[in-house]
């Protein structure tokens, strides 16, 4: 685990079609918003380098198509993810209800070692709209995230760049921690294996 090794954090962004996954990612990586994003087909990815407490990390962000049927194509890149971002649209209650489905699907497909501790971050996007159009209340979302094991929640606007950096800072930190935990765990497991082997040998005698 040398510190010179390039730290690569893999982040998957999931959520219903049209909640603003591409916009969030573009706002974070390129600092701009456009009305001209096309619907994402398949998957798309962007890289961004950032410094976290003197440590340079490369974030690899995977943007996905929101339509359900595309799930079957996406399996391959869920694996090895360090953090999963679940996005909903505050104007669309259905997209909020589906957040837990997306989470379940991710856990099944990514085959993560410790599902209880895997870092998810929930984002409610499009808070720039009129109050009257907001159909998912902050309170409801907070309740939901608390129930799922205190998942971090952010209310953002990709359009007006509200809360984007804050959200991605937490995403990056949690991903980094997950990455380090994984490495630690691998070493730990190896140690156990060696012990077991020697015990077995002992029994055979």
């Amino acid at each position: 685990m040398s510190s010179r090794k390039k730290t690569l954090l893999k982040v998957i962004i999931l959520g219903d079609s049209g909640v603003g996954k591409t916009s969030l990612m573009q706002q974070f990586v390129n600092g701009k918003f456009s009305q001209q994003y096309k619907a994402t087909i398949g998957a798309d990815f962007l890289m961004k380098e950032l410094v976290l407490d003197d440590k340079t990390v490369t974030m690899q962000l995977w943007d996905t198509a929101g339509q359900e049927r595309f799930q079957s194509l996406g399996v391959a890149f869920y694996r090895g993810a360090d953090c999963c971002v679940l996005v909903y649209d505050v104007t669309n209650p259905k997209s909020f209800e589906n957040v837990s489905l997306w989470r379940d699907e991710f856990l099944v497909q990514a085959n993560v070692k410790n599902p209880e501790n895997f870092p998810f971050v929930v984002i409610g996007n499009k808070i720039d709209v009129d109050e009257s159009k907001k159909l998912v209340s902050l309170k409801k979302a907070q309740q939901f995230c608390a129930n799922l094991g205190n998942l971090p929640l952010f209310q953002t606007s990709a359009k007006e760049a509200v809360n984007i950096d804050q959200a991605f800072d937490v995403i990056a930190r949690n991903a980094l921690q997950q990455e380090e935990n994984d490495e630690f765990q691998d070493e730990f497991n190896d140690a156990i294996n060696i012990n077991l082997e020697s015990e077995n040998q002992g029994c055979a005698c």
Partner: protein
Amino acid sequence: MTDIKPKFRDEAMSRSHGTSLPNLPQSQTMKTLPVAPMVKPSASMVSLPKFDFVKDDQVDSLDPTLTNSSKKRHTLLQSPSTQSIQHSSLSLIDMYRDQSSGSQESDTATDIMALNVSGAMISEVSLINGSQSTFASAHDLLVLRNSRTNGSKVRLCIEESRTVISSNRDRYGFKKATNFITEEQYNNWWIGYASHCARRKRKWQDLMIKNGLSLNNDSPVRFPARSEKLKRYIRKGIPAEWRGNAWWFFAKGPEKLKNNQGVYDTLVESTLHLKNKDTEIIERDLNRTFPDNVHFKPDRVDSSHESNEETALIEALRRVLVAFSAYNPKIGYCQSLNFITGLLLIFMDEEKAFWMLVIITTGYLPGVHEVSLEGVNVDQGVLMLALKEYLPEAWNVVSNIRFDDQCSGRNDLKNHDFLLKLPPVTLCTSSWFMSAFIGILPIETTLRVWDCLFYEESNILFKVALSVFKLIEPKIQHINDEMEVFQVIQNTPKSILDPKDLFDIMFKRRIGFNNLTQDEVVRCKKYVADRRQRAHVDGTSDTGDVNFNRQLLAESLWQPDLYGFKRGLPGVHWNNNLTRKMKSKIRRNNNHS
């Protein structure tokens, strides 16, 4: 926590079995529709046509009396306006933008008159059919008709190169600049390409005249019979003004429409108020279809206030996609169909665009957009096999991309196991096929690909993909970082501004992609589909399963060479795999002795 069922999958399964529109009564099929026009209306008689034409051939074989009656009904509704629609669709692509303003008003006047005539008949028809809310009201039909007329009036400004250079949009209304191409690059390239187009058009005109075909006021509807010469002409580009007609002709659109007269109109009317999962996603995708095209998203005159008014093409796009989702429930709506339909609508009227969509999703990209997306997986399997065969160096790099260590290593290449669990690179390449390269290649290059596609069939898509990889190959040879490789694969096609860069590779004899004929593609698709199907039937696609592995082992005993591409001399079945095996065997024997 780990054994949570993937709920999406279950939903998808049930979705694929549902065959009819949720909002339409399903109890009565079209055959039970009252044939006599003046049956007394009763409350119990809610008989709507059931649009579950999974196979469109079925439509043709429906009860003849019914077809007649629905045809008659359709004529009643449509006859006053069809003329004006047809009239305007003749000159869909206009060389001169400002020609249309004069005739517009008179058209609208005719429409209103037409509506008054048909309005009475519509109410009669809706009485017969029962007053279901999903069915169109007289007012709906007025709006519908106006919108359809407007849609077919969209004029494209295919003008001389000079005009285009002064504008920030191309001749189809797309912004010239993209994330990968600057406006300056575009203009520099366009000067040459415009003269290529003009030269090719003169050649085409000569060809047409020699074949005794009418240019029909720069909108020919019939094209020469198939020949090597015609194929060469198409590969060098169909004149942009003729494209819609030419695609329609070569894809056998006229036959399709002839067998399905009136079906589209009936579908549109019956799906006018349809609301379901598909229409919800369609609504969300309408404004995300070609936001960089003026016909889909006009320049805002006043930047402070966002206009909510939809363009005629967006309205047409909605109608075609919704009608299609009802017409083919196995597909419903799949993201990427919006791009295919959107591009079609720039070149032809919406009824033709609808039937082209039907033709494309059955003939050119079969199964690709179905709920399971199995067609995508099959195509990607074929592409991977072809890559392995034709560009082994690129394959070597690409097949090594693994997103994590859990994936088994290279040993699963031996038995073509990669067909069951496709390499991660297919995440990127599957969208190439789903949208038939729209948004992947720059627009003029995409259009040239489409020209060939409808004349030469789906093998073109594989040839294009291989050619893109040929361009990628030298760039990825020395990259160690797999994500960088991925990025090159993702970005390279987006900067192929000049179609020549792609086409020179695609059809150059020395490179040999010509060997990948349609027969070969069909054969290979069958192999991949069988292979995947068998793995699926055997209970599990999990390669960790012992029985599964045993099965694979058994397979490899009786099928040692898996798949052999035809190479070299025509008619000779050359199997590279065999050659390689023989060579190594000889080498081994030599070493032993």
